[in-house]
């Protein structure tokens, strides 16, 4: 079962990586993902522990309540993203990154000091919708598959192409009639929604939720997923999230050195593959190799 629960953590990390990669598709380096992840987690933790009616009579927490939490979390995170996104997305590059870090920090300090969020101890004894990690895994996989599909669809859609155009050259994109602000805002809101949904699942899975879940460290970790995996395809961030989450656990037999080895992998990965492990070119090459093999 430790394998299953590791897979759940990997799936959640992959979702967070997708969330970071969406604004990057239109060239926006946003580190706000852990902020929205924390919002999702708090919505789930508060609704499931404070609102008794959601719990129902059964021993496990009802699935419809979980879906309701996800709906509420998506709405709240989306609304915050809309509100914050318009002014923040005026900024570019490193300035946008700093502004989004500030957002994450503000949410964290707010959560630490508000009465209803439980302070640093946070909220614990969050009810379980599934009997074991298997249920969580199936749920996370479905969620991840749905978002992978949406991100893959984006490549063929007007929105996705507009995002790519903005990434290549924002000025040229605007000259071609792309409403750049709206497109960037859409990507930011989508990114917030993914992170919030992951947060809902994570809060139940972890049994407890506190302000440490959405911190600056988490911003950097999620960014590392994307840098390691590659940001130009949807598959890159997913692979980055899966691999970098699994690695510290798989390295347990190494003993005390495991975090050093892990650090080396993070260092060597981008040094050898500056575009990330997975690039469109490499995917094409793999696809061709696969086809010629088939014949």
């Amino acid at each position, binding site marked *: *079962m*430790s394998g299953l629960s590791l897979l759940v953590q990997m799936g959640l990390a992959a979702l967070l990586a997708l969330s970071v990669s969406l604004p990057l598709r239109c060239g926006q380096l946003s580190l706000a993902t852990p902020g929205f992840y924390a919002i999702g987690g708090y919505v789930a933790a508060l609704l499931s522990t404070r609102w008794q009616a959601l719990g129902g009579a059964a021993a496990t927490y009802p699935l419809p309540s979980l879906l309701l939490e996800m709906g509420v979390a998506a709405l709240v995170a989306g609304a915050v993203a809309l509100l914050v996104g318009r002014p923040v997305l005026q900024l570019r590059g490193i300035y946008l990154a700093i502004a989004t870090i500030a957002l994450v920090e503000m949410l964290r300090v707010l959560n630490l000091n508000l009465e209803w969020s439980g302070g640093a*101890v946070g909220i614990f004894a969050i009810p379980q919708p599934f009997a074991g990690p298997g249920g969580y895994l199936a749920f996370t*996989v479905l969620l991840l598959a*749905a978002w*992978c599909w949406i991100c893959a669809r984006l490549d063929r859609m007007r929105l996705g192409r507009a995002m790519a155009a903005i990434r290549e050259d924002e000025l040229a994109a605007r000259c071609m009639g792309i409403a750049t602000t709206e497109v960037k805002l859409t990507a930011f809101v989508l990114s917030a929604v993914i992170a919030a949904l992951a947060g809902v699942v994570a809060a139940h899975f972890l049994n407890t939720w506190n302000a440490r879940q959405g911190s600056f460290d988490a911003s950097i970790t999620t960014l590392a997923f994307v840098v390691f995996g590659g940001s130009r395809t949807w598959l890159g961030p997913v692979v980055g999230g899966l691999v970098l989450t699994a690695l510290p656990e798989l390295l347990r037999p190494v003993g*005390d050195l495991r975090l050093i080895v892990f650090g080396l992998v993070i260092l060597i990965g981008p040094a050898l593959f500056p575009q990330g492990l997975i690039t469109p070119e490499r995917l094409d090459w793999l696809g061709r190799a696969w086809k010629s093999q088939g014949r």
Partner: protein
Amino acid sequence: MGSRLVSLPALAAALLGVVSVLAACGSDGSQQPLNLSGGVPVGAVLALTSNANAYGQDQQIGLDLAQRWFNGPGLGGQAGGIGGKPVRLRIEDGGGDEQGASQAFNLLIDAGVVALIGPTLSQQAFAADPIAQRRGVPVVAPSNTAVGIPQIGSFISRVSASSAVIAPLSIAKALELNPGISRAAVFYAQDDAYSTSETTIFQKALTTKGLKPVTVQRTQLNDQDFQNQITAALRLHPDLIVISAQAVDGGNLIRQLRELGYKGAIVVGNGMNTPNIYPICQASCDGILIAQAYSPELATPINQTFLKLYKQAKGGAIPPQLTAQAFTAFQVVAEALERLNRRQPLGALKLAEARTALMAELLGGRYDTPLGEISFTPDGEVVQKNFYVAQVRMQPDGRSGRFALLNGSPP
């Protein structure tokens, strides 16, 4: 762009297929007989990496010593293990976060351990303990002091007394040493579960003594520079400062307090109850007051044995509380296993039965430990008789020091 389109149903079906195969492999084996080849399996999850490793190191020594003591023949009257089988302790690193501790708990439970010791931090316990509770594995926490830990479930217990019991003692001692104290200032790490939990107890104790804090300053675990909070507090001329923080940030805070000219009394909480603070605050550590759940001066045979083992291992040093508590946690598990084995041989039990029976046995027993005689309440809270207050005395070179117990039993 060359990335191909994947159809959602195909993707989901493929992934779900993988999941169900994995789920089929992942049956947890708790209905199998307890595997005693190589010894009685017990697991421990300690913070050996991250900021909390200052605690994990102390605990690891305690567990190692306890294992050597319990499995070795003749030491302290033990006949070597349980019915001839040694206790096989497997220690996993839980890091300093919730995910790490949960993963390590799952890993050890899958490996078939009959009981778990850990995790190091209260915050980790809130995430990992429910997993052990659901899977029916006894947990003995050696260092969780936050309020509400044993109440997580029937399989959760601790040998570390709650900060609600210990924290007020050091305040009383400070007032006893210096009855003139009239203005108290409070510092705490606002992003830490243990610190925020303990500071409410400190503040309540101060108010009961008629010393409503003149200021409450908030710090963060990763802070290095506390000048803002310190100047704000010193402006109000406190003559007692009460700190709830962890080892690294608390050590730096004390050092800066002294550097900025504060001369009054300092009381700190359990988070700084480790000799690993000496290199951080050095000479500034001198004189701080800490309540203790362990006294090296306790003149019982088991404590003398523990002292001897520790001094052998660490070149004559005095063991800290965390080490004594870790030793105690192992001892509690091992002695409960031994009693259980005498009534029902462990080899004949299924793993799940052994875990349930062990928990009942564990809570029902009395233990003569380095902490003194302890027992448990029905919900797993430790019942301990003796607590102490220590004052840190640093050597003139500021490199090493000791926790010197203050005479006179605390009220």
